[in-house]
């Protein structure tokens, strides 16, 4: 019944030993962190070769996260869009409400095996911060979360959630006071406390081995989805759609399907106020290659090499870079990268909420917005699988504010 995934073509089997996906990836860090990054790569290589490590990981995902997450056929949404049948991979139903926990469970296990006692993390929307604070609480580890001062205002409920979980949330006031600056600050912390600290990066970016390691942890999404889809329908989906900020939920869904050459893939970036304006966060659609936060990848950078401020309605996509494997998949033309604007995203947010009774995260609503356009062009009977990477409870205040609604009255 379970058709094994076909073997990957060589160009999709990255990264190489030093962490490169074609010209992208690598480990561009200051000398103080070189050894820490190398030790992490060694620890991951040795642990990930042991079946016990994955048994421990799978057990945690089952009993603590609640995996497998369901595959849901969204019939009313499909009818409204016309065309393809719409399937949702329900990562929003995971413990803590998003795919982020898959990665923090894996990295916390690694931290434990490496004997590290102090966890640090960066966060944008707060979902990764919450997922990090959650695993830290469960394992009795100290946790410090760096968050841009701007994002702290946008995502107040998640800030309080992290505090309840016992984490210390540190407001980052430098630069543009968003996710990229939080990552700078986390790197500074790591260099300062390099001996006892484990840095949990929340996405498939950063220096090697993070892009590979986080992908491996998140690939549970695609492995489950592929199996569930075959069980339910006997065929593979015609197309996959996922939102891309750093790109961890997208790579997690895509990777196990990369060898299935008939499965089309779409990564949806935040087009903000439009790709033809400066106000977006779409490096793959409208950026160029450069080096930031430890890896070479597509970036939002000006002609002088300064990193540009980004804009998105969703804090989780508000990042000027993207995982290096996405950069490579773009160049190989295996995945098509597109954008959804703030406006399209909000429409999709309401559509799913009203038609299916599921309030999606604004990040995931980008994937839905593009999926709606794609579905309409597909034939009935074709199948479109969308990664619903997170739930939208954290966003309802922001949506009310954006739309001038009176939050909390009837």
């Amino acid at each position, binding site marked *: 019944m379970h058709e094994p995934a076909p073997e990957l073509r060589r160009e999709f089997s990255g990264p190489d030993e*030093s962490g490169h996906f074609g010209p992208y990836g690598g480990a561009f860090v200051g000398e103080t962190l070189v050894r820490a990054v190398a030790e992490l790569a060694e620890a991951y290589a040795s642990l990930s070769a042991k079946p016990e490590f994955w048994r421990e990981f799978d057990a945690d995902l089952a009993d603590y996260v609640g995996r497998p997450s369901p595959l849901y056929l969204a019939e009313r949404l499909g009818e409204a869009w016309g065309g393809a049948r719409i399937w949702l991979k329900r990562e929003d139903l995971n413990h803590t409400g998003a795919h982020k926990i898959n990665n923090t469970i894996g990295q916390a296990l690694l931290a434990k095996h490496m004997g590290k006692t102090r966890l640090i993390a960066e966060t944008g929307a707060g979902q990764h911060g919450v997922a990090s604070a959650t695993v830290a609480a469960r394992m009795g580890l100290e946790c410090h979360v760096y968050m841009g001062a701007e994002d702290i205002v946008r995502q107040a409920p998640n800030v309080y959630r992290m505090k309840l979980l016992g984490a210390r949330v540190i407001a980052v006031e430098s630069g543009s006071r968003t996710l990229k600056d939080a990552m*700078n600050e986390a790197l500074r912390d790591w260099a300062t406390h390099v001996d006892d600290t484990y840095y949990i990066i929340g996405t498939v970016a950063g220096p090697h081995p993070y892009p590979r390691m986080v992908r491996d942890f998140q690939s549970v999404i695609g492995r489950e989805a592929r199996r569930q889809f075959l069980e339910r329908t006997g065929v593979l989906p015609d197309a996959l759609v996922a939102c891309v900020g750093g790109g961890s939920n997208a790579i997690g869904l895509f990777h196990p399907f990369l060898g299935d050459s008939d499965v089309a893939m779409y990564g949806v970036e935040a087009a903000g106020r439009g790709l033809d304006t400066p106000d977006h966060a779409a490096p793959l659609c409208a950026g160029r290659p450069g080096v930031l936060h430890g890896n070479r990848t597509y970036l939002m950078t000006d002609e002088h090499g*300064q990193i540009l401020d980004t804009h998105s309605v969703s804090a989780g996509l508000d990042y000027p870079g993207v995982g290096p494997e996405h950069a490579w998949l773009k160049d190989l033309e295996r995945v098509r990268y597109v954008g959804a604007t703030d406006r399209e995203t909000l429409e999709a947010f309401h559509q799913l909420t009203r038609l299916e009774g599921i309030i999606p995260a604004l990040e995931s609503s980008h994937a839905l917005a593009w999926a709606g356009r794609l579905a309409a062009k597909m034939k009935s009977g074709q199948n479109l699988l969308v990664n619903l990477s997170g739930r939208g409870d954290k966003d309802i205040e922001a949506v009310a504010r954006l739309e001038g609604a009176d939050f909390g009255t009837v």
Partner: protein
Amino acid sequence: MSRIAPCAARAREQERGLLIPYLVAGDPDFATTLALMRELVARGADMIELGIPFSDPSSDGPVIQRGVERALAGGATLAGVLELARRFRDQDGRTPVILMGYLNPIEIMGYGEFTAGCARAGVDGVLVVDMPPAEAGDLPALLAGQGIDRIFLVSPTTTPGRAREIIEYTSGYLYYVSLKGVTGAALEDRESVAGNIAGLRKLTDLPIIIGFGIRDEETALAMNALGDGVIIGSALVEKIEQLPPEATGHPEAIGEAAELIGKVRRALDHDGKRVS
């Protein structure tokens, strides 16, 4: 050809420690930086490290971050930094200038254009903080082709095997990072510096210059005793932060900021190895 080796040789001959101030190019504007560079040389700087402003300086502490933000607010670009270096070189043919920065501005300009720009501006050395030798591509070869030195960092976390590899890529001087942390942090573990420098001495004859956490005469003397000289960055940038607006119209203020280096110079010379 780079002026670094002759400069280091002179200092060695005179048995004096090398004193290298770091400042952010364009903080708060290029005219001020140029005036400061001349004043620093007048007060005893042997070489000058010129920071290339970058929006995301993830190895720098808050003082240099603010310096970078001021420079970027003033419109500083890498092309502007090269122009500043050229203007300094027009007036001073002797003092080595080392550019220090992050890779992205160089990557976006292109390694070839950057190297040519450095050569035209009379730049003597380049240090890219987030570019370990393994990721350097053809930049070291391009710089070497123009006689420009490739400076790399060695830190307390660098293993001896890796230090050997770094030294193979390094010319001019080896920059020893005195502490685990970012620029401007407090110097705590002085004993480990002594041990690590002794280890490096067995691997190389390059001058070893110590930076990070050096902020006054006392820390400069302590670190100079272990290496061949010191780099002072954050403490100087802190003084630059205090400059009045339109500082070029206030030469006394520029002199006062640069006097930190004058004081350290006198302390180092007084402590000269000849004297001790």
